[in-house]
């Protein structure tokens, strides 16, 4: 080692020591500040294209829901679960299992050493719940605990939460969102297969939608006075049939579709829409007589694609309508909307034939949706072909209908079947994804929806359900790399 140096260096030593003291004085407050920051359907209801008349025409089939059933349901559904803070585990507690030979005094010493504020023992299995002092990091504490030889295991106190289930009165009729299996509360009381649903409740744990993401419902209009829709419709929209700014639904189809997509959820009444927090834009192209023209649809696509209001813009367009004829003008309008980043969703048709309707058949721009039932079987009415991308429940789907057409003594809801009812489930999912990841383009969202379903028909892609029945949870939830 080196020899001691001369006396004059003592002055230098004093200078270095002064520098050391200075550094400690300067850096210590920074440390304290950092610590403080830490605290811290054969019932066809799809609108079809009449070749002779060259018009869209929605078929209808209604069934009624008696108020008596609703009253019974109110008693069953009585809580509003929440997702909570979104944290994976508690920020002020850890779970610790100590070696059994430790005395009570030793246990106390161990926990005090790790800045435990308090702790209690879960008897029989010898696990301690340790509450940490404010500002003490769970991660750091666990790192330190795991190196202690007296500790068998130390882990975070993971958050427990109920699956997000809305408190809407009729939610238990919505097997499409969450299918409990067994005898279902739908007409005919059929037996359903558990989990033959789109896994909406699981998806809502990861996002409930953004009010600024609009879903344009190009259909017969929407009853914007409906109690389950009034708060969800951004404005009165556009009526291309009557050429005015009031897209009120003088039929029922558009209101039914709108309810599936985004009926107000968790409002203690009615149903829950798939896109819980997203809003709706009514666009009317189907007349009171149930007819519509391609020109109105083309006009509507362009108008909806350009629509903005107070920061909200259209992210998804649902078209539960279709015709049998291709049309290059229609294709051009679809391309226009698609190039604006809008996800286009359309029903495949309800003839049970190998003929996917337009616009659904425009594969480059549009997701073509087939219908499945409560057992994940393809609905016999669902049109099929290579253009079908995915499927969603479309048999006996309950949703909203205009109050004006509701018969006295009945609630403004009805069960209906059709690929018209399947497509809005997909549109709702597209809106949830768009809300969670607004930077994704239409193409990526379409791929995500196509690549994440449950394969319910023949293995791999088939012409009936496409890639399968959509799985909203798989599309929304993080994938854990292990």
């Amino acid at each position, binding site marked *: *080692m*080196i020899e001691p140096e*001369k006396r004059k260096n003592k002055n230098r030593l004093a200078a270095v020591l002064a520098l050391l003291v200075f550094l400690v004085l300067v*850096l210590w407050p920074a440390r304290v500040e950092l610590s403080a920051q830490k605290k811290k359907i054969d019932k066809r209801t799809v609108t079809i294209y009449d070749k002779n008349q060259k018009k869209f025409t929605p078929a209808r089939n209604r069934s009624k829901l008696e108020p008596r059933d609703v009253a019974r349901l109110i008693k069953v559904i009585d809580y509003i679960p929440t997702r909570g803070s979104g944290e994976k585990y508690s920020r002020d507690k850890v779970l610790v299992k100590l070696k059994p030979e430790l005395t009570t005094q030793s246990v106390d010493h161990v926990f005090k050493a790790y800045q435990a504020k308090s702790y209690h023992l879960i008897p029989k299995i010898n696990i301690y719940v340790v509450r940490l002092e404010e500002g003490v990091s769970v991660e*750091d504490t666990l790192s330190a605990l795991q190196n202690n030889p007296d500790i068998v295991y130390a882990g975070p106190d993971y958050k427990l939460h109920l699956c997000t289930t809305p408190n809407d009165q009729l939610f238990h009729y919505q097997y499409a969102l969450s299918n409990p299996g067994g005898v279902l509360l739908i007409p005919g009381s059929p037996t359903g297969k558990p989990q033959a649903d789109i896994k909406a409740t699981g998806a809502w744990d990861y996002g409930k939608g953004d009010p600024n993401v609009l879903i344009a419902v190009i259909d017969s209009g929407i009853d914007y006075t409906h109690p389950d829709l009034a708060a969800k419709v951004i404005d009165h929209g556009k009526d291309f049939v009557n050429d005015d700014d009031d897209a009120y639904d003088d039929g029922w189809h558009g209101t039914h579709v709108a309810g599936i997509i985004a009926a107000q959820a968790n409002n203690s009444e009615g149903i829950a829409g798939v896109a819980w927090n997203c809003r709706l834009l009514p666009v009317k192209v189907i007349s009171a007589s149930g007819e519509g023209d391609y020109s109105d649809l083309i006009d509507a696509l362009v108008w909806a694609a350009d629509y903005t209001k107070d920061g909200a813009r259209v992210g998804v367009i649902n078209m539960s309508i279709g015709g049998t004829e291709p049309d290059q003008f229609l294709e051009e309008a679809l391309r226009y909307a698609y190039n604006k980043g809008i996800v286009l969703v359309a029903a495949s048709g309800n003839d049970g034939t190998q003929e996917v309707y337009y616009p659904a058949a425009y594969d480059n721009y549009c997701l073509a949706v087939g219908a499945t039932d409560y057992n994940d079987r393809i609905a016999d009415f669902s049109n099929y072909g290579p253009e079908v991308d995915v499927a969603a429940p479309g048999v006996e789907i309950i949703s909203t209908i205009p109050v004006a057409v509701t018969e006295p003594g009945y609630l403004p809801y009805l069960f209906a079947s059709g690929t018209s009812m399947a497509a809005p489930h997909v549109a709702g999912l597209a809106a949830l994804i768009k809300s969670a990841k607004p930077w994704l383009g239409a193409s990526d969202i379409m791929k995500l929806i196509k*690549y994440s379903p449950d*394969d319910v028909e023949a293995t791999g892609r088939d012409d009936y359900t496409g890639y399968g029945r959509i799985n909203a949870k798989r599309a929304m939830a993080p994938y854990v790399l292990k």
Partner: protein
Amino acid sequence: MPLKEIRGQRFLWLAIVLMVFMAPGLKTQANLHGESNLNQASTWEFGLRFDLFNRGTKWDQTTSTLKALNLMAEARGKNLGGTVDLNLFAGLGSTDLNGVVFSQLPITLDYQAGRITGLVVGLGADWPLIYASDFRLGLTADFMTWIGFNKKFAIEGFVFPGEAKAEPDWAQASGGIFAAYEGYENVEPFFDITVSALWGTFNMTENIQDLSGEEEKKIKGSGLLSISLGCHLKLTEKLYLTPVARFYPASKFGLAGSLGLYYAF
């Protein structure tokens, strides 16, 4: 932070480290210490060093802990140019970055796959300024970077089999003062107080058929101040052992340790 910027930061740190102890060192040291130290021959020691590393990190608004294990070959040059002790090291290291979530990807990926192996390289130096009694005091600086090897993971459960590729890296630079006691014959205890910054990136790409995305997370060490305690143990005439413990007071349980065994030539 773009990769370019990260690399730029690294070069900046390297430049600072080199400037601190190389440029001014030769003359000042010579002046202070007369010619006595210059007359001492430079020596080189070669050996193996094992590092254990546990440090709080922040990414986005979340905190987690970066855990690293490194095994490196090291060369230590003593009294180079009569002024500076220099050490160079390179080896393999594995880093655990569990808990980083890539939410910008089309399919959000939650990394829970544990350690990733990579290459560790770095250098360090002590520049003694003052010799008083049996004490030696001066400036110290070191820089270490870890570049993780690509690690691929299968993404299952989707219509098409997918793949995710993880590419993490981090770097740490420290600079401060040290004091060593030379009064014992076979042991030289020392300590240092340094400002220590850690930064890095964790790049993740995912591919499922034609659905793909890439996201880069910036990772920052949560504490700046670090204190090290250690000693050089002379086991035999030629064999030296150096255990060191390092604490990060601002990171509560942030700690690191190393053990090196060296042979002198």
